[in-house]
Structures are given as structure tokens and as C-alpha cells.
């Protein structure tokens, strides 16, 4: 194989694939079969990190960046004047195996521009996965993109080889989709999603009766939404995400701050700031919904359609609902502990365990590792000292912001610096 040609292709096709956020390699259970190559043990491994701090755990490439569609937000859109390239199936297989053997990656993330037709493209993606699994006896992680509009038969076969399947919904609102990707219909996205979901449910049920039922997409499916390309509110995004979590049983919804890639009157111009803080707040909200027992309507509703950029969503909620506080650390139940700003789920578990042995005081809480700079205003514990509780929400917020540091502080601080 000619390394020079491969190198050129890899540069083009990896560059185009980097806007896909998902790089998780966890959640699958695939043992090493018959002395073959690789396994995926359930916990993901990040083998390296990019200079923007994102994890590299999979070889993330496009099969090709030729595309028949012209979606405004996408680098590989038809009308964009860029270098095009396409991998042969064997080339992707060889690259994956050689990288994997050197412990560079956990597996393959294969996406593609759409050439000829959705089915033609999907067929190629499935062929790569098939060859890796059947011919190379590769048991590492495979993440395949479901191509919008692909047929049910192909989606079925894809799930037999892949650990995870995903369709990127990209634009959270249907009106936004019409504006930016007029060739695509909303149904094209949801159809493969629905098929995959139904197959996962069916295989799980059958597996309980017949143990030899093949696994189907054991790491589930995920999707991704672009943030800040159209004028959508945080409420639109999170309500859409909740919809995908409940209706399609998504394992993950990813939020990707829009990186301007083209000059287009419908989109933010090139050089405008990537909304990283907003992305961060959305992920925090996502976590609150999935692990902390919050309902999306508590965090975002008609009165509050957007998240507060200055404080995290849990603190924002607490400031609006001061009547729930203070919470007694030594007696409160798990659900309530999880709602205290500055206490994460790990700390909740530690508190629950530790308080079986003795009454906890500030000293203990500090050692356990909770963020007292926020939590102290919302809790009482085994101590005669506690914070005054008759503070107004605004005063409290100011006090907390004053006594804490945030990595995004410079983005929203309206206060001018006195020095430098």
C-alpha cells in the first residue's frame, strides 16, 4: 500500500470528521473471541487528547467527503470548494487494524459524505464493519453513522457488526432544518433511528429467552445537535434532547458549539466566537436530567427559556427555589442531596455512606470533596456554625460568584479589569 497516498487521504478525511463530537468507546461488552484481536471491556479508554482537550479514543474518519447534499452548516457540502478524497474499504480496515495493534485507538468511528444515494453509502460503511468483524476477527469498538434515508435492511445489518450507531440530527428545530438543509427531511433522520431503537428492544427481549441471539448495537445509539447555528433557545435544544432520550432511548445526545466553516448569510460569520460556555451549560443540564433526577421543565420553561450563563444550571435552579433549602446533610434523602449546588453524585454517595458512622461536620464535608464555596449556603450539618439563610437570591448569587473562579469567567464578566 502506498503510504503517501494514504497519508493524503487520511489528512483530508480525518479533518472533515473532526466536527463529530462523539468519541466514546464505553458501554459495549465484546470479549476477545478465539484468540482474535481486541475487545471492548465496557469502560472506554481515551488514548490521547487533542489540543482542544477532546478525547481521542477512536480512529474517526469519513469514508469519503464527496456529498450530494448542500447543508449550509457542513464542511463537506456540495458547493464548498475543498479537496475531495475517498478511502477504499480495505484501506480503512488496514488502518484500523494497524493503529489498534499499536494501542493508539479503541476502534473505528466511520462516517461518510453521501455519494450516489443513501443506501449506496450505507452499504459501503456496513462492508467495512463486516470485513473487520468477520474476516479480521476484530473485536474492538466500531461506531457507524446511520446515513439519513438508509433502508431498514441495511440498518439491521449495521447493528449486527457495530457497537454503536448514530444519526446526527444537527438542527434541533424543524424550521431550522428547512432553512439550512432544504434537501433533507426530518423523517430521513428519524427513520433509521426508529429502526435501530426497535431492533435493540427486540434483540434485548429475545436474548432473555434465547441466549444465542446475536447482540445488536450493544452500546446503543447517539445523536448530535449543533448549538448556535440557528436562533434556537436552550429550551428548544433541551426539550428536543429529552424527546430523543425518551422516544428513541438514546444513550447520549451530544451538543456541539457551531464552528463557522462557511460564509453564508443564514449562519454566524467566519471568525465569530464558538459558543463554548453555552455548550458547557447544556452538557451540565443534560447531566442533571440523566443522573440527578431533574425534570427538564424545572430547569427550562416559559419563564426561563435560556440557561443562566453566569452560574451553573443547578445553582440557577436552587436560587429560584430557595424554599427547599437549607438541607440537613445528616438526614436528607438522596434525591434532595443531589439537588444541592456543589454536591456531585460521587459526593452524594460518599455522604450517604459516611453518615452511617457519624454525624458529619464541615470538616468531613470538606475532606469528602464537596464544593463548599457553593454548597455552604444551602446546607446545615453537625456544627453550630452555618451561613445566614435570609439572603436574597440576587445577593447570594453575587456572593457566590465573587468567591469562586470559573474558567469561562472572562466570557461574561462585564466588569473591566483594573490591571492589564
Amino acid at each position, binding site marked *: 500500500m502506498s503510504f503517501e497516498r494514504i497519508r493524503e487521504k487520511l489528512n483530508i478525511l480525518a479533518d472533515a470528521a473532526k466536527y463529530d463530537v462523539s468519541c466514546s468507546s464505553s458501554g459495549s461488552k465484546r470479549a476477545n473471541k478465539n484468540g482474535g484481536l481486541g475487545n471492548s471491556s465496557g469502560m472506554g479508554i481515551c488514548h490521547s487528547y487533542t489540543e482542544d482537550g477532546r478525547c481521542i479514543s477512536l480512529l474517526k474518519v469519513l469514508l469519503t467527503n464527496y456529498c450530494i447534499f448542500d447543508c449550509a452548516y457542513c464542511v463537506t457540502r456540495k458547493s464548498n470548494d475543498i479537496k475531495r478524497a475517498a478511502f477504499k474499504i480495505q484501506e480503512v480496515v488496514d488502518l484500523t487494524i494497524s493503529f489498534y*495493534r499499536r494501542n493508539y485507538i479503541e476502534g473505528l468511528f466511520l462516517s461518510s459524505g453521501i455519494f450516489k444515494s443513501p443506501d449506496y453509502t450505507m452499504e459501503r460503511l456496513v462492508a467495512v464493519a463486516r470485513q473487520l468483524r468477520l474476516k479480521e476477527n476484530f473485536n474492538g469498538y466500531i461506531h457507524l453513522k446511520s446515513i439519513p434515508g438508509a433502508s431498514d435492511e441495511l440498518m439491521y445489518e449495521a447493528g449486527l457488526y457495530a457497537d454503536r450507531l448514530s444519526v446526527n440530527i444537527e438542527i434541533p428545530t424543524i424550521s431550522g432544518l428547512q432553512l439550512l438543509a432544504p434537501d433533507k427531511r426530518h423523517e430521513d433522520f428519524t427513520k433509521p433511528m426508529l429502526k435501530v431503537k426497535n431492533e435493540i428492544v427486540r434483540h434485548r427481549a429475545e436474548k432473555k429467552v434465547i441466549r444465542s441471539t446475536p447482540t445488536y448495537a450493544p452500546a446503543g445509539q447517539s445523536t448530535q445537535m449543533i448549538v448556535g447555528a440557528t436562533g434556537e433557545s436552550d429550551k428548544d435544544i433541551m426539550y428536543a434532547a429529552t424527546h430523543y432520550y425518551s422516544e428513541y432511548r438514546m444513550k447520549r445526545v451530544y451538543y456541539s458549539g457551531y464552528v463557522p466553516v462557511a460564509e453564508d448569510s443564514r449562519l454566524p460569520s467566519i471568525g465569530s466566537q464558538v459558543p463554548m460556555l453555552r455548550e458547557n451549560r447544556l452538557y451540565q443540564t443534560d447531566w442533571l436530567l440523566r443522573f440527578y433526577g431533574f425534570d427538564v421543565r424545572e430547569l427550562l420553561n416559559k419563564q426561563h427559556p435560556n440557561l443562566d450563563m453566569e452560574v451553573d444550571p443547578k445553582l440557577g435552579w436552587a436560587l429560584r427555589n430557595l424554599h427547599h433549602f437549607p438541607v440537613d446533610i445528616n438526614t436528607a434523602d438522596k434525591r434532595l442531596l443531589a439537588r444541592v449546588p456543589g454536591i456531585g453524585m460521587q459526593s452524594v454517595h460518599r455522604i450517604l455512606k459516611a453518615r452511617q458512622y457519624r454525624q458529619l461536620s464541615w470538616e468531613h464535608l470538606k475532606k469528602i470533596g464537596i464544593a463548599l464555596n457553593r454548597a455552604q449556603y444551602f446546607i446545615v450539618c453537625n456544627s453550630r456554625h452555618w451561613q445566614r439563610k435570609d439572603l436574597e437570591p440576587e445577593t447570594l448569587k453575587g456572593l457566590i460568584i465573587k468567591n469562586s473562579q470559573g474558567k469561562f469567567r472572562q466570557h461574561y464578566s462585564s466588569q473591566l479589569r483594573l490591571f492589564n
Partner: protein
Amino acid sequence: METAKILIYDGSFNGFLTTVFKAFEERLQIADIQSNAICQNGLFSETETVFTQMDKAKRVWNGIQAKSNVAIKNIYFSYLSGQRGIELILYRYIRKLFAKMPTSTSDFSDSLVLKISQLAKSVGREKHRMEAFVRFQLTQDGIYFANIEPDFDVLPLISKHFRSRYADQEWIIYDVKRKYGLYYNLKSVEIISLDLQEVYGNSIRKNDTFSGEEYAYQDLWNDYFKSTHIKSRINRKLHTQHVPKRYWKYLSEKKQAV
């Protein structure tokens, strides 16, 4: 009053467990437990050398495991941290587990329990890092070879991971700091020690030891690493937080940076 004793053992984990057995059996006053590599006499205590006995070590291991699986894991992991004086801390921890009113491994308000669990956690973190940061290079003889230099002695912990993952290739992972390594011969893992002429990091200079293709793949990987950055989101601080600089010299993708 009986004088407190310093027990000297051979520096192996089983040796340490034998020492614990002896201390319990003879109800000794323990001043310290030291490895024979770094022992130091105390002024007011006498020393005694303990010889490793597998059956006794096994009994201690089983005894602790019967108490709690978390405890045995924490003890083994924090032992591997190799921290100075860890033996005595672990001995006190084991005493607590077997006391009349036993301390639970989840009582994080007890400072000893918290310390052991945190130490075990940082060893666990290093183990996970090594599973990620090992970079094999293919030698002329068809063996995938990697040098590592972890903060803690994690080789015994990562052996199983690599054995079950790379079942169809021969590999060596060699700890340069502790001068021993693991060799997988397609059937089982052996402990080896090598007389290495040099440390094989991510040098730009090509070495005859490795196959020619090896460097082509390293270039591909380097290129891939470079093309995954999104320029407008660069965050070097986060990058070095995830990939601390002390590991860079063994990571082929950081060739240029070192």
C-alpha cells in the same frame, strides 16, 4: 514492657502479607515494617527479618477478602503505590478491619480509610493511564514493544488487560524505572528483565530495531493527531491536564512537542 519491633521483609507483596500474619499471630508491638532494600534501624526498637511464606500470605489475603472485596483491592493498589512508609499505614488499616469494632471500608470520615481509598484511587488512575498511553512499536522480529515509566508499579495490574486484548500478537511492555517488564508469548505472560541499551521513546531518529513500516504508521498517527484539532477551540491547558507532560516522551503523537 515489650519493646516495639521493626520487621524487615523481602519487598514483595506476599512478603508484606507474611509480616502482617506474624504480627497478628505473635501479637507484636510494631514500630515499623520495612523492605530490606531500604531498612533503617530504630533507636529504641529491635529488628527482625521475616521470610516470605506463601501459605501464610494466602491466609491473610483470604482473610481480608472475606471481610471485604473493596478492602483487598484498596490494600493491593495502595501497596503498589510504593509510597514511603505505606507498609505501616496498611498494617494499621488491616488492624482496623479486624478490630473488635471493625471499621468499614466506606467510612470516609475516618482519615485512615479515606487516605487508603484515595491512594488506591490514584494508583487506579495510573493503571488506567497506562492502558491508554502504552504505544507499541513493531520490532524487526515481529514483537510489539513498548517502554513505560509510570509513577507507580502498575505492571501487575495492567497485565490482564493487555493479555485479553492483544491475544494474537507477541508484545513486551517494559518498565524503565523499575527495570522489569511483561512479555506475552501468545500463550501466557512472563516477567522478564532486559539489558536495554537505550530507552525507546518517541525519538524522531529511526532505529534499526524497528521495522520500516513502523515509522510510516507513526507518521500516519501523527498526522491523524494533528488533523483532529479544531483551531478555534484550542485549549492547551486542558490538553496537558489530560496528557501530563511527563508521559510525552513515550507518546509518538507528541514527537514534535518534546
